[in-house]
């Protein structure tokens, strides 16, 4: 059996505290009566409550002031304001400021009983809702990745299948699509999961520094090399190394890397002694390596060594169905980090998130959500928070391809085409984003003679 629901009574009149307590005790609640707002705030820090019954008129801190304080750190705790002198004004004010209900003393036993039962039921449903949403999210979760997208689900399956082998994997995807998370999932699914996962960003360092970072150096190998330093490959021994932005490394490093992949040995800078390493290589790039080979800036042999299996991550604009799921997960994460308690994104703000093309992919979404959660004044993120995040980029992001000399009809046609394309011609989703009903959308498609082959 679940523990008893807990109710705090805050009233300066002892007679009210005792009579209400004994009545609620008979109802099986755990009741804590306190006599002032100050004591109530102290008590709230010691244990959690399901409901507060607060008297409106109390010396020092009145009921509304107390409720305001409580809502600052427990925004979801239902508060019932009680008063012997009810006026419409105070009732409206109490409800406006977040009271669940406003009851006049003395209560009708039926009324108070029903109100409390209603609150408890609502609390239970909310808890159940949170639990079910979490369970549902789990279905679409793979390690730290969340996706409902079919292509992504196939990638999760592929990772499960190939992770336990030692084949080299090349991850391809635009910036911000979560290449490192895919690499981490591969490592976590592999037999090497208890050994190190070493990520290296190949763009952030100069050629010589990256070389020393990857392979290490002996003492005195170069000016400033006062001690021997192990490289990332040695540190990743028996584990995995993740080489991010592999398309950006110099021809010399490409050759060194090819040698490591072929011989499974590294040589520290300043040494001639090969050191065997047992490392699974996962590489990633946002470049088209095929084109880089054709342009002679990437070695073909290295490409084939790396590209035993390729994982192609779709950009966020190709999986808009993931935006609500990712948004929810990101809100939860930022709430945890910042102590905020944002619950969701308003419908119009979500429509904007779904419509945007996300050139920066999930990383960009993460930034928008982080900013919005921090700025949110209520527990819902609205257009007020989301809108300014896009600033002047919003037009580029939505990319309806307008120009100054274009007619309104042409603009509309372009915009509808763009939304339809972004949503794989899903009429319902597109109509929702466009803010029109499905019939209107069909009429517009007919009017502009749009078809799936429309460019």
């Amino acid at each position, binding site marked *: 059996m679940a523990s008893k629901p807990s109710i705090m009574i805050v009233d300066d009149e002892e007679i*009210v505290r005792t009579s209400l307590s004994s*009545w609620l005790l008979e109802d099986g609640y755990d009741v804590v009566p306190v006599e002032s707002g100050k004591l109530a705030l102290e008590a709230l820090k010691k244990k959690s409550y399901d409901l507060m019954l607060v008297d409106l008129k109390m010396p020092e801190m009145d009921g509304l002031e107390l409720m305001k304080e409580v809502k600052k750190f427990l925004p979801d705790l239902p508060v019932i304001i009680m008063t012997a002198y009810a006026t419409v004004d105070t009732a409206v004010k109490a409800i406006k400021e977040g009271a669940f209900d406003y009851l006049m003393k*003395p209560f009708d036993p039926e009324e108070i009983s029903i109100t409390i039962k209603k609150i408890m039921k609502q609390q239970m449903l909310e808890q159940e809702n949170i639990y079910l949403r979490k369970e549902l999210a789990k279905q679409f979760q793979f390690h730290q990745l969340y996706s409902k997208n079919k292509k992504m689900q196939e990638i999760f399956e592929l990772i499960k299948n190939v992770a336990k082998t030692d084949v080299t994997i090349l991850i391809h995807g635009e910036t911000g699509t979560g290449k490192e998370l895919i690499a981490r999932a591969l490592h976590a699914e592999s037999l090497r999961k208890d050994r190190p996962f070493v990520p290296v960003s190949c763009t952030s360092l100069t050629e010589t520094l990256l070389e020393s970072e990857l392979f290490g150096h002996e003492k005195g190998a170069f000016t400033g090399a006062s001690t021997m330093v192990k490289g990332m490959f040695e540190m990743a021994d028996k584990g995995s190394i993740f080489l991010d932005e592999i398309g950006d490394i110099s021809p010399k490093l490409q050759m060194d890397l090819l040698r490591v992949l072929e011989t499974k040995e590294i040589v520290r800078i300043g040494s001639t002694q090969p050191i065997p390493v047992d490392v699974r290589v996962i590489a990633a790039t946002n470049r088209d390596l095929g084109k880089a080979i054709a342009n002679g800036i990437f070695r073909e042999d290295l490409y084939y060594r790396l590209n035993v299996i390729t994982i192609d991550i779709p950009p966020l604009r190709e999986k808009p169905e993931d935006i609500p799921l990712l948004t929810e997960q990101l809100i939860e994460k930022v709430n945890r980090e910042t102590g905020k308690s944002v619950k969701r994104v308003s419908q119009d703000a979500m429509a904007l998130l779904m419509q945007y093309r996300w050139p920066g992919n999930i990383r960009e979404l993460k930034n928008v959500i982080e900013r919005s959660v921090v700025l949110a004044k209520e527990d819902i993120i609205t257009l007020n928070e989301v809108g300014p995040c896009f600033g002047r980029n919003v037009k580029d992001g939505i990319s309806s391809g307008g120009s100054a000399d274009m007619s309104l009809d042409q603009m509309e046609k372009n915009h509808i085409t763009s939304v339809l394309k972004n949503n794989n011609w899903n009429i319902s989703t597109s109509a929702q984003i466009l803010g029109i009903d499905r019939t209107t959308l069909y009429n517009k498609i007919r009017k502009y003679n749009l078809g799936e082959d429309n460019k």
Partner: protein
Amino acid sequence: MDTLPIPVRVLPSIESPVYAFDPDRKQYYSTKILRYIVNSHSDSALRTIGITAVDLFIPILTYVFGEAQLDGKAAIVSGARLKQEYYGLKPDKRLYVERLFKELMHELGHTFGLTHCDLSYCVMHLSNNVTGIDKKTATFCENHRDQLINKLKELEIPYGK
């Protein structure tokens, strides 16, 4: 109908509890009467329960049918709102006695530590009006009967024989 295996002693009536009368509400403060009963409780009895014809209230509620010391010695039940006449209906003595019996069992249940029951047929179900009282039965649900038996066992009183 559930009964408790405990002999009942009927004490002589006492005077109307004027000390508990609230002239503003024109009702009697049940906790004050309960306190009186607790003070006059004799240890030769297991529990003392008062029955009154006056309408009862506690300060926070407009009325109560009765009040008990949860896991205590005494309880009080009012018959005022259990009578059909209170609602402008024809008197019905049988119904009145039935309601009174249910409320007595209910308040006695509280004195044995029982709290309200979610099951609508259990006598420990909270009834805020006579329709609710009429809906519930005069018996305890399985769970509350078990709790009661355990409590009686603690008090070394056999139950169910």
